[in-house]
Protein backbone atom coordinates (compact mmCIF):
# COMPACT_ATOMS: atom_id res chain seq x y z
CA UNK A 1 0.00 0.00 0.00
CA UNK A 2 1.59 3.28 -1.08
CA UNK A 3 1.35 6.63 0.72
CA UNK A 4 -1.57 7.95 -1.33
CA UNK A 5 -3.61 4.81 -0.75
CA UNK A 6 -2.84 4.90 2.94
CA UNK A 7 -3.96 8.51 3.27
CA UNK A 8 -7.11 7.61 1.33
CA UNK A 9 -7.76 4.80 3.80
CA UNK A 10 -7.16 7.22 6.67
CA UNK A 11 -9.67 9.73 5.29
CA UNK A 12 -12.39 7.08 5.07
CA UNK A 13 -11.66 5.12 8.21
CA UNK A 14 -10.51 7.73 10.72
CA UNK A 15 -13.99 9.07 11.56
CA UNK A 16 -15.28 5.53 12.11
CA UNK A 17 -12.34 4.48 14.25
CA UNK A 18 -12.38 7.66 16.30
CA UNK A 19 -16.14 7.47 16.97
CA UNK A 20 -15.95 3.81 17.82
CA UNK A 21 -13.16 4.50 20.30
CA UNK A 22 -15.01 7.52 21.69
CA UNK A 23 -18.09 5.37 22.21
CA UNK A 24 -16.10 2.71 24.00
CA UNK A 25 -13.81 4.90 26.08
CA UNK A 26 -16.04 7.99 26.60
CA UNK A 27 -12.94 10.09 26.74
CA UNK A 28 -12.27 12.36 23.84
CA UNK A 29 -8.56 12.77 24.44
CA UNK A 30 -7.97 9.06 24.94
CA UNK A 31 -10.00 8.24 21.80
CA UNK A 32 -7.99 10.73 19.77
CA UNK A 33 -4.72 9.34 21.06
CA UNK A 34 -5.68 5.73 20.41
CA UNK A 35 -7.06 6.52 16.94
CA UNK A 36 -3.68 7.99 16.01
CA UNK A 37 -1.98 4.92 17.48
CA UNK A 38 -4.20 2.60 15.41
CA UNK A 39 -3.09 4.30 12.19
CA UNK A 40 0.55 4.35 13.26
CA UNK A 41 0.36 0.59 13.79
CA UNK A 42 -1.38 0.21 10.44
CA UNK A 43 1.31 2.20 8.65
CA UNK A 44 4.10 0.10 10.15
CA UNK A 45 2.26 -3.13 9.36
CA UNK A 46 1.34 -2.18 5.80
CA UNK A 47 4.91 -1.07 5.06
CA UNK A 48 6.26 -4.43 6.17
CA UNK A 49 3.77 -6.58 4.30
CA UNK A 50 0.60 -6.56 2.24
CA UNK A 51 -2.47 -4.78 3.61
CA UNK A 52 -5.32 -7.08 4.73
CA UNK A 53 -8.18 -7.59 2.31
CA UNK A 54 -10.68 -6.01 4.71
CA UNK A 55 -8.67 -3.09 6.05
CA UNK A 56 -11.69 -1.57 7.82
CA UNK A 57 -12.28 -4.68 9.89
CA UNK A 58 -8.58 -4.99 10.63
CA UNK A 59 -8.40 -1.39 11.87
CA UNK A 60 -11.45 -1.83 14.11
CA UNK A 61 -9.88 -4.99 15.47
CA UNK A 62 -6.73 -3.09 16.42
CA UNK A 63 -8.81 -0.24 17.88
CA UNK A 64 -10.85 -2.72 19.87
CA UNK A 65 -7.73 -4.32 21.27
CA UNK A 66 -6.23 -0.96 22.25
CA UNK A 67 -9.51 0.19 23.80
CA UNK A 68 -9.78 -2.99 25.87
CA UNK A 69 -6.21 -2.54 27.06
CA UNK A 70 -6.90 1.07 28.06
CA UNK A 71 -10.12 0.15 29.85
CA UNK A 72 -8.38 -2.63 31.76
CA UNK A 73 -5.64 -0.24 32.82
CA UNK A 74 -8.23 2.28 33.97
CA UNK A 75 -10.06 -0.38 35.95
CA UNK A 76 -6.83 -1.31 37.71
CA UNK A 77 -6.16 2.37 38.45
CA UNK A 78 -9.67 2.82 39.80
CA UNK A 79 -9.23 -0.23 42.00
CA UNK A 80 -5.97 1.16 43.30
CA UNK A 81 -7.62 4.56 43.81
CA UNK A 82 -10.43 3.00 45.80
CA UNK A 83 -7.91 1.11 47.90
CA UNK A 84 -5.92 4.28 48.48
CA UNK A 85 -2.92 2.77 46.73
CA UNK A 86 -2.74 5.05 43.74
CA UNK A 87 0.64 6.43 42.90
CA UNK A 88 0.84 10.20 42.75
CA UNK A 89 -0.06 11.35 39.29
CA UNK A 90 0.36 14.68 37.64
CA UNK A 91 -2.93 16.53 37.08
CA UNK A 92 -2.67 16.25 33.29
CA UNK A 93 -2.44 12.45 33.56
CA UNK A 94 -5.69 12.15 35.44
CA UNK A 95 -8.49 10.57 33.39
CA UNK A 96 -10.34 13.10 31.30
CA UNK A 97 -13.99 12.15 31.60
CA UNK A 98 -16.43 12.87 28.81
CA UNK A 99 -17.92 15.96 30.44
CA UNK A 100 -15.18 18.58 30.25
CA UNK A 101 -13.81 17.29 26.95
CA UNK A 102 -17.25 17.32 25.36
CA UNK A 103 -17.92 20.81 26.64
CA UNK A 104 -14.91 22.06 24.76
CA UNK A 105 -16.58 20.97 21.54
CA UNK A 106 -19.37 23.40 20.60
CA UNK A 107 -20.54 21.32 17.64
CA UNK A 108 -21.30 18.35 19.83
CA UNK A 109 -23.25 20.59 22.20
CA UNK A 110 -25.21 22.09 19.34
CA UNK A 111 -26.39 18.73 18.08
CA UNK A 112 -27.85 17.83 21.40
CA UNK A 113 -26.05 16.30 24.28
CA UNK A 114 -29.18 15.01 25.94
CA UNK A 115 -30.05 12.79 23.00
CA UNK A 116 -26.51 11.54 22.92
CA UNK A 117 -26.52 10.67 26.60
CA UNK A 118 -29.88 8.90 26.31
CA UNK A 119 -28.63 6.80 23.41
CA UNK A 120 -25.48 5.93 25.31
CA UNK A 121 -27.39 4.87 28.38
CA UNK A 122 -29.68 2.68 26.27
CA UNK A 123 -26.76 1.03 24.45
CA UNK A 124 -25.07 0.40 27.78
CA UNK A 125 -28.16 -1.48 28.90
CA UNK A 126 -27.70 -4.07 26.13
CA UNK A 127 -25.86 -7.29 26.83
CA UNK A 128 -22.15 -7.21 25.84
CA UNK A 129 -22.61 -9.33 22.71
CA UNK A 130 -25.47 -7.23 21.34
CA UNK A 131 -23.71 -3.99 22.25
CA UNK A 132 -20.56 -5.05 20.43
CA UNK A 133 -22.39 -6.00 17.26
CA UNK A 134 -24.31 -2.71 17.19
CA UNK A 135 -21.20 -0.64 17.81
CA UNK A 136 -19.29 -2.47 15.10
CA UNK A 137 -22.18 -2.28 12.64
CA UNK A 138 -23.60 1.20 13.25
CA UNK A 139 -20.79 3.20 14.86
CA UNK A 140 -17.70 1.63 13.23
CA UNK A 141 -19.58 1.01 9.99
CA UNK A 142 -18.39 -2.55 9.41
CA UNK A 143 -20.36 -4.84 7.14
CA UNK A 144 -21.99 -8.00 8.48
CA UNK A 145 -19.26 -10.16 6.90
CA UNK A 146 -16.51 -8.00 8.42
CA UNK A 147 -18.13 -8.33 11.84
CA UNK A 148 -18.45 -12.06 11.35
CA UNK A 149 -14.74 -12.26 10.62
CA UNK A 150 -13.88 -10.09 13.62
CA UNK A 151 -16.05 -12.10 16.00
CA UNK A 152 -15.22 -15.44 14.44
CA UNK A 153 -18.81 -16.29 13.54
CA UNK A 154 -21.06 -16.41 10.47
CA UNK A 155 -22.91 -13.67 8.56
CA UNK A 156 -26.24 -15.26 9.48
CA UNK A 157 -25.39 -15.16 13.18
CA UNK A 158 -24.38 -11.51 12.91
CA UNK A 159 -27.62 -10.59 11.10
CA UNK A 160 -29.70 -12.36 13.74
CA UNK A 161 -27.72 -10.78 16.52
CA UNK A 162 -28.14 -7.26 15.14
CA UNK A 163 -31.88 -7.88 14.66
CA UNK A 164 -32.26 -8.89 18.30
CA UNK A 165 -29.97 -6.08 19.47
CA UNK A 166 -31.99 -3.42 17.66
CA UNK A 167 -35.24 -4.86 19.01
CA UNK A 168 -33.89 -4.74 22.57
CA UNK A 169 -32.47 -1.27 22.05
CA UNK A 170 -35.79 -0.02 20.76
CA UNK A 171 -37.61 -1.40 23.79
CA UNK A 172 -35.10 0.10 26.22
CA UNK A 173 -35.20 3.39 24.35
CA UNK A 174 -38.99 3.58 24.53
CA UNK A 175 -38.90 2.92 28.25
CA UNK A 176 -36.20 5.54 28.78
CA UNK A 177 -38.20 8.12 26.86
CA UNK A 178 -41.37 7.25 28.74
CA UNK A 179 -39.52 7.63 32.05
CA UNK A 180 -37.99 10.90 30.95
CA UNK A 181 -41.41 12.15 29.86
CA UNK A 182 -42.89 11.28 33.25
CA UNK A 183 -39.98 13.01 34.98
CA UNK A 184 -40.49 16.19 32.94
CA UNK A 185 -36.97 16.09 31.49
CA UNK A 186 -37.70 14.56 28.12
CA UNK A 187 -34.77 13.71 25.95
CA UNK A 188 -36.65 14.93 22.88
Amino acid sequence: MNGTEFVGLYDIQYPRIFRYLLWRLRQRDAAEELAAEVFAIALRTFQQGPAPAQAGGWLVDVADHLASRTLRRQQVEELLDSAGLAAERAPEELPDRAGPAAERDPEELAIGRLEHETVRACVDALNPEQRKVLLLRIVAGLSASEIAETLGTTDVMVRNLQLRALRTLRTIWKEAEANAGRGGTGAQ
Partner: protein
Amino acid sequence: MQGEAAQERSELLDGIKLEILLRVLEGSEALPEQMEVTPELTALRDTARRLRAASQSAALPRGHQVVRRVLQVAARPGEQQAAPPRGAWRWARLWLSTAMAAAVVGAFGLGAGALDAFVLPSSPAYGLRLTIDRARDAFTAGRHESGPRIGTSKLGHGAAAGNSPAGPGAPHASQ
Protein backbone atom coordinates in the same frame (compact mmCIF):
# COMPACT_ATOMS: atom_id res chain seq x y z
CA MET B 1 -42.16 -27.98 15.75
CA GLN B 2 -43.55 -26.48 12.54
CA GLY B 3 -44.34 -23.29 14.37
CA GLU B 4 -40.78 -23.03 15.62
CA ALA B 5 -39.39 -23.67 12.15
CA ALA B 6 -41.66 -21.00 10.67
CA GLN B 7 -40.58 -18.59 13.39
CA GLU B 8 -36.94 -19.35 12.65
CA ARG B 9 -37.49 -18.76 8.93
CA SER B 10 -39.24 -15.51 9.66
CA GLU B 11 -36.38 -14.35 11.90
CA LEU B 12 -33.89 -15.26 9.21
CA LEU B 13 -35.83 -13.30 6.62
CA ASP B 14 -36.21 -10.33 8.95
CA GLY B 15 -32.44 -10.41 9.57
CA ILE B 16 -31.76 -10.28 5.84
CA LYS B 17 -34.28 -7.50 5.28
CA LEU B 18 -32.89 -5.47 8.17
CA GLU B 19 -29.38 -5.85 6.75
CA ILE B 20 -30.62 -4.48 3.43
CA LEU B 21 -32.34 -1.58 5.21
CA LEU B 22 -29.11 -0.79 7.07
CA ARG B 23 -27.18 -0.78 3.81
CA VAL B 24 -29.76 1.58 2.34
CA LEU B 25 -29.34 3.76 5.42
CA GLU B 26 -25.57 3.87 4.85
CA GLY B 27 -26.18 4.74 1.21
CA SER B 28 -24.31 1.72 -0.09
CA GLU B 29 -27.39 0.10 -1.62
CA ALA B 30 -30.79 1.08 -3.01
CA LEU B 31 -34.01 -0.36 -1.59
CA PRO B 32 -35.30 -3.17 -3.84
CA GLU B 33 -38.75 -2.18 -5.13
CA GLN B 34 -40.40 -5.53 -4.51
CA MET B 35 -39.16 -5.88 -0.93
CA GLU B 36 -41.90 -5.82 1.67
CA VAL B 37 -40.95 -3.99 4.82
CA THR B 38 -42.99 -4.50 7.96
CA PRO B 39 -43.63 -1.61 10.36
CA GLU B 40 -41.42 -3.34 12.93
CA LEU B 41 -38.47 -3.41 10.54
CA THR B 42 -39.04 0.24 9.68
CA ALA B 43 -39.00 1.06 13.40
CA LEU B 44 -35.76 -0.90 13.85
CA ARG B 45 -34.24 0.94 10.90
CA ASP B 46 -35.22 4.24 12.56
CA THR B 47 -33.62 3.09 15.81
CA ALA B 48 -30.43 2.33 13.91
CA ARG B 49 -30.64 5.76 12.26
CA ARG B 50 -30.89 7.49 15.62
CA LEU B 51 -27.98 5.50 16.99
CA ARG B 52 -25.94 6.38 13.92
CA ALA B 53 -26.85 10.06 14.19
CA ALA B 54 -25.92 10.10 17.86
CA SER B 55 -22.54 8.48 17.19
CA GLN B 56 -21.79 10.83 14.30
CA SER B 57 -22.71 13.91 16.30
CA ALA B 58 -19.29 13.74 17.93
CA ALA B 59 -17.08 16.10 15.96
CA LEU B 60 -13.69 14.85 14.87
CA PRO B 61 -10.77 16.18 16.88
CA ARG B 62 -8.84 19.10 15.47
CA GLY B 63 -5.64 17.09 15.68
CA HIS B 64 -6.78 14.56 13.12
CA GLN B 65 -5.52 16.66 10.21
CA VAL B 66 -2.14 16.94 11.90
CA VAL B 67 -2.02 13.16 12.32
CA ARG B 68 -2.96 12.84 8.64
CA ARG B 69 -0.04 15.04 7.58
CA VAL B 70 2.39 13.17 9.82
CA LEU B 71 1.24 9.83 8.41
CA GLN B 72 1.47 11.20 4.88
CA VAL B 73 5.10 12.17 5.44
CA ALA B 74 5.86 8.91 7.23
CA ALA B 75 4.32 6.87 4.41
CA ARG B 76 6.58 8.52 1.80
CA PRO B 77 9.99 7.08 2.77
CA GLY B 78 8.50 3.64 2.31
CA GLU B 79 7.83 4.47 -1.33
CA GLN B 80 11.34 5.86 -1.83
CA GLN B 81 12.86 2.73 -0.37
CA ALA B 82 10.72 0.58 -2.57
CA ALA B 83 11.71 2.41 -5.77
CA PRO B 84 15.38 1.35 -6.28
CA PRO B 85 16.04 -2.40 -6.43
CA ARG B 86 17.41 -3.47 -3.09
CA GLY B 87 19.40 -6.35 -4.63
CA ALA B 88 21.58 -3.92 -6.60
CA TRP B 89 22.47 -1.99 -3.46
CA ARG B 90 23.34 -5.20 -1.66
CA TRP B 91 25.71 -6.29 -4.46
CA ALA B 92 27.32 -2.85 -4.65
CA ARG B 93 27.95 -2.88 -0.90
CA LEU B 94 29.44 -6.38 -1.10
CA TRP B 95 31.79 -5.46 -3.97
CA LEU B 96 32.92 -2.22 -2.35
CA SER B 97 33.67 -3.86 0.97
CA THR B 98 35.56 -6.70 -0.73
CA ALA B 99 37.65 -4.24 -2.76
CA MET B 100 38.42 -2.17 0.35
CA ALA B 101 39.45 -5.26 2.29
CA ALA B 102 41.73 -6.36 -0.57
CA ALA B 103 43.32 -2.89 -0.74
CA VAL B 104 43.99 -2.84 3.00
CA VAL B 105 45.49 -6.34 3.00
CA GLY B 106 47.60 -5.52 -0.10
CA ALA B 107 48.96 -2.28 1.35
CA PHE B 108 49.74 -3.96 4.65
CA GLY B 109 51.39 -6.86 2.87
CA LEU B 110 53.54 -4.55 0.71
CA GLY B 111 54.56 -2.55 3.76
CA ALA B 112 55.43 -5.58 5.85
CA GLY B 113 57.35 -7.21 3.03
CA ALA B 114 55.11 -10.21 2.99
CA LEU B 115 54.45 -9.76 -0.71
CA ASP B 116 58.09 -9.20 -1.67
CA ALA B 117 58.24 -12.55 -3.36
CA PHE B 118 55.23 -11.66 -5.53
CA VAL B 119 56.32 -8.13 -6.45
CA LEU B 120 59.16 -8.59 -8.89
CA PRO B 121 61.41 -5.68 -9.90
CA SER B 122 59.92 -5.86 -13.38
CA SER B 123 56.40 -5.48 -12.08
CA PRO B 124 54.68 -2.08 -12.06
CA ALA B 125 53.93 -2.54 -8.32
CA TYR B 126 57.64 -2.53 -7.55
CA GLY B 127 57.75 1.29 -7.61
CA LEU B 128 54.93 1.40 -5.09
CA ARG B 129 56.75 -1.10 -2.92
CA LEU B 130 59.89 1.09 -2.95
CA THR B 131 57.86 4.17 -2.06
CA ILE B 132 56.30 2.34 0.86
CA ASP B 133 59.68 1.11 2.03
CA ARG B 134 61.18 4.61 1.89
CA ALA B 135 58.26 6.04 3.77
CA ARG B 136 58.61 3.33 6.38
CA ASP B 137 62.33 4.03 6.71
CA ALA B 138 61.67 7.73 7.13
CA PHE B 139 59.37 7.04 10.08
CA THR B 140 61.35 4.22 11.63
CA ALA B 141 64.91 5.34 11.08
CA GLY B 142 67.62 2.80 11.79
CA ARG B 143 65.35 -0.18 11.78
CA HIS B 144 66.96 -1.72 8.69
CA GLU B 145 70.57 -0.78 9.37
CA SER B 146 71.53 -4.34 10.18
CA GLY B 147 70.21 -5.75 6.92
CA PRO B 148 70.37 -4.69 3.30
CA ARG B 149 67.69 -2.34 2.06
CA ILE B 150 65.55 -3.47 -0.73
CA GLY B 151 66.58 -1.79 -3.95
CA THR B 152 69.78 -0.41 -2.43
CA SER B 153 71.93 -3.51 -2.40
CA LYS B 154 75.64 -2.99 -1.86
CA LEU B 155 77.72 -4.28 -4.73
CA GLY B 156 81.45 -5.00 -5.00
CA HIS B 157 84.12 -5.97 -2.49
CA GLY B 158 82.90 -3.60 0.24
CA ALA B 159 79.54 -5.17 0.14
CA ALA B 160 80.96 -8.64 0.19
CA ALA B 161 83.19 -7.71 3.13
CA GLY B 162 80.35 -6.03 4.97
CA ASN B 163 78.01 -8.96 4.41
CA SER B 164 80.50 -11.77 5.13
CA PRO B 165 80.71 -13.22 8.62
CA ALA B 166 84.41 -12.30 8.70
CA GLY B 167 83.83 -8.72 7.56
CA PRO B 168 84.58 -5.45 9.40
CA GLY B 169 81.45 -5.73 11.45
CA ALA B 170 82.08 -9.33 12.50
CA PRO B 171 83.62 -10.08 15.87
CA HIS B 172 87.23 -11.22 15.71
CA ALA B 173 88.13 -14.52 17.23
CA SER B 174 91.30 -13.03 18.78
CA GLN B 175 89.42 -10.27 20.62
